[in-house]
Every structure is written in structure tokens, then in C-alpha cells.
């Protein structure tokens, strides 16, 4: 996203290249264009752009992508710190 970048080198995103079958779904769904298909394999071209929404991992048919998904929302995280870890990770706004 032009002009708007968040904190670098924190995203929990990993890609297992050996598993990837090159279906390109992750390339399609990522709203931050983190993936590209190169030589029939997914490649992370902008890992720092990842917002950990989980769309790529959920849609990968062979489980090649791992990410700790959630909503980047301070008040939600505070609530979780206060009330323990058992709140679902995606119940913000």
C-alpha cells in the first residue's frame, strides 16, 4: 500500500515452497499483494506488507502457508491480555 506501511519484520507468515503446487490462489486473495507466482511456485515478494489476515493460508489447498491470523487491533489485544488468551483472535471492530 502506497505511503502506508506498518512495522517491519514481525509478520508470522511462512511459506513451504516444497508443498506449493502453484495454484496461485494465494496470489489472488492477498489484499497486499504479498505473493507472486514465479516458475510455477508461490514466492513472498513483500512479506513486510502482510497484515496477517490469514486469507492466503485458509485458501491454500495444500497447507503450504502458515500464518498466525488475527486482527491488528490494540483494544482487542488489551482485552486479551486482561482476560486471558481464550478470546478468539478475530473479534474486533
Amino acid at each position: 500500500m502506497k505511503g502506508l506501511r506498518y512495522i517491519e519484520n514481525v509478520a508470522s507468515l511462512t511459506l513451504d515452497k516444497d508443498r506449493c503446487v502453484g495454484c496461485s490462489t494465494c496470489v489472488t486473495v492477498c489484499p497486499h499483494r504479498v505473493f507472486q507466482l514465479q516458475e510455477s511456485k508461490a514466492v513472498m515478494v513483500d512479506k513486510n506488507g502482510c497484515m496477517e489476515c490469514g486469507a492466503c493460508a485458509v485458501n491454500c489447498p495444500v497447507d503450504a502457508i502458515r500464518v498466525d491470523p488475527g486482527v491488528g487491533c490494540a483494544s482487542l489485544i488489551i482485552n486479551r491480555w486482561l482476560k486471558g488468551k481464550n478470546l478468539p483472535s478475530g473479534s474486533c471492530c
Partner: protein
Amino acid sequence: MAGTKSGREEKDFSEGSVIELAEVQTAAAPQEVCCGGAPPPKTNPLERPGYTLKPFVRAFIKDSRSDVALVKTELDFSDHIGALLARLGINRDEYRIAPGLYGVGYPGQGSPVIVTANYKLTFDFVRRELAGLDCWILVLDTCGINVWCAAGKRTFSTEEIVYRIKETGLSERVNHRRVIVPQLGASGIAAHEVRKRCGFRVVYGPVKAVALKAFLENDMQATEKMRTVTFTFGERFELIPVEFYLFGRKVWWIFPLLFIISGFSPDIFSPLQGWQRGILVSSAALWGGVCGMLIVPLLLPWIPGRAFSLKGALLAMATTPAFVLVADLQVLETTALVLVFTSISSHLAMNFTGSTPYTSPSGVEKEMKRALPLQGLALAAGIVMWLAAPFVNI
């Protein structure tokens, strides 16, 4: 795309007929003028006890299966009022429509199926963008929440889409096996699972409804631009009223409290001093709110720093000279108030992370671990100084 251009002539319903509400209404309108002028039109015969006929419905497809409501593609006054209230945060939780199958134009066997959420604002966007096309709209039950947030909460989910496809008998309404899901719903839906469980292929449409028509006309190919999320000035602006409203509702009681604590003085308690100093400290708190919840979101890309808490603090500190000039106070009081509004601005700016489409939870957590203690310390120091100021003379 064949079959997307609207026109009743080209329709290919397998069975049943379309009942236009406008025609029903004209036919039923009474002709005679009774005492006291012409009576208002009769109740629409399509109304049913216990149900409301929604003003956005244009017609019904009636056949042996359940009715499908065909909706208007132009928004009317009540839609705009509803949208405004929802944007202001009023009535937002009740702004929903019944989930199920709808249509625009005269959808038939070959028409595309657009999936969306049952938040009425979202639904309104979608139907408006489909003007002139024949499409089905499959509305999922997301508890009245938009696609993006609902996908995060997993109410816009594989489960729900599969259930809704079956429940509406979609496979009998269309001869293809394809549903167009907004790209931002992808985090809630596993396309390959949907296919496995009900035979429908999920095609991810553009991020924004505005691009739907172009997407359909381009053989369901999205450009890179259509696939990328944005967070423009206008988009940030739209979020602000809701944030203010929801947050204001939670914290308004702080202000009377500020007036009270400002009254403590060497003569035990002075209402006059409470009033004068109360105004000062309330203004400082409010200013922190304005910085963190209004100015930071609006000027987001232009304020230095990555962390929102840093942006909030920097912006607030930048206004210190103006504050000093306006308030014209002693050093201790000035320092106290600057600490108060800087910490508040920093914290509220950090809270805005929940409304952006680009902050990762890992990043927010890292930022918070550093910022929260500093914000707390600064606020506490500010309050202590504020309380101490009447007793010392610096």
C-alpha cells in the same frame, strides 16, 4: 460476459413469473375520491402478516420454490439516511437485511451470483454497482457486519456460504456452479472446501464493489489494482464519526471527574478553581482525543513513524507551542497538560490500528509492549503534576 446485460426480453427463467411491485400497486389503487380527498394507496397485496415489504424491493420471482426478491439498483432517501446513521455509529448494530437470495435486473440460469454480507450498507453498495446487469445476490448471515470484519470474526465463513447455497436452492436457479465472493471475504472462506462440500467454485471478485461491473465485463479477471486494498483519505474520514461516537459513549464520565479533581486546592476545595482548571484539563484531554482520533487518522501517511502510538505522540507534541501560547500557564501546569494530551493522543492513535486494513496483530502487539508503559507513565505523571500544581508555585 454473455447474459449479464439487463433486459426482460432475454430472460430465461426456467419457470415461474416476475411480479413487479409497481404494477401491482397501480392496479390496486382506488379510483374513487372519498370524503377528505383521495385516500392513500391500498396496502400492497404482496405484504404478508408479520413481514415487512422492504422499500428496496422492486419485484418478486414467484414460482414453486421460495420467492426471490428482485431489488432496486438506485438508493433512495431512506437508504441514504440509514447509511448516514450507520456511519455516525447510531443504530449500526440493527442495520441488517434478511439473508438469502436476491436479484437485480432479471437474473436467469446463466446469471452470475454475487455473494455479500447482510450489513445493509454493504448490500446497498453492491446493488447500486450492479445497475443495468442481471445478477443473483446471495446474502450471507454475518450478523449485520461488513464482509471484511465478518471474515475476521468467521461469520462470513465456509460453513455459512455452503449452508446458504443449499438453503436457497441455488443449484436449481443457475446452470453454472460459480459464486463470486468479495476478495476481502477470503480470510473467512476456504475456496477449495466450498467446492468440495457443495460443488460451487468460488471466484474471488474485486476488493471493492465499485469494480464489480468492470470485473464482470472483463471475464471475471481482476486487475492488480482491483485486488489491492486501499486506505485513502476519504476511507479514513468515513471511520472517524463511528470511532468518536463509540468511544465518547464509553468515556464521557471522565470529564465531570476532571472538574472535580481540579477543584482541590490549598483551601481544601474551591468550586471556582475547579471550574477554571477543570476547563483547562478537560480541553487538554479533549485535544488529546482530537489529535489521536481525528488528526492522526486523517494525516496518517504524512506523520513520521510507523508505530501509531509514535505518530500520535509526535503530532500532539507538535502542537505544544500553540497550547502554551493559548493557555498561558505556569511551567508545572503546562508540563502536566502536555503530558496528558500527548499520552491520550498516543493511546487513541494506537487504538486506530483496529480500523485500518494494514496493521498486523504481530506488529500491534510489538508496538503496544513498548508504548503502553510509556503512555501510562506519562499520563500518571501528568495527573500528579496537575494535582500538585495548586500547592506549589512553579
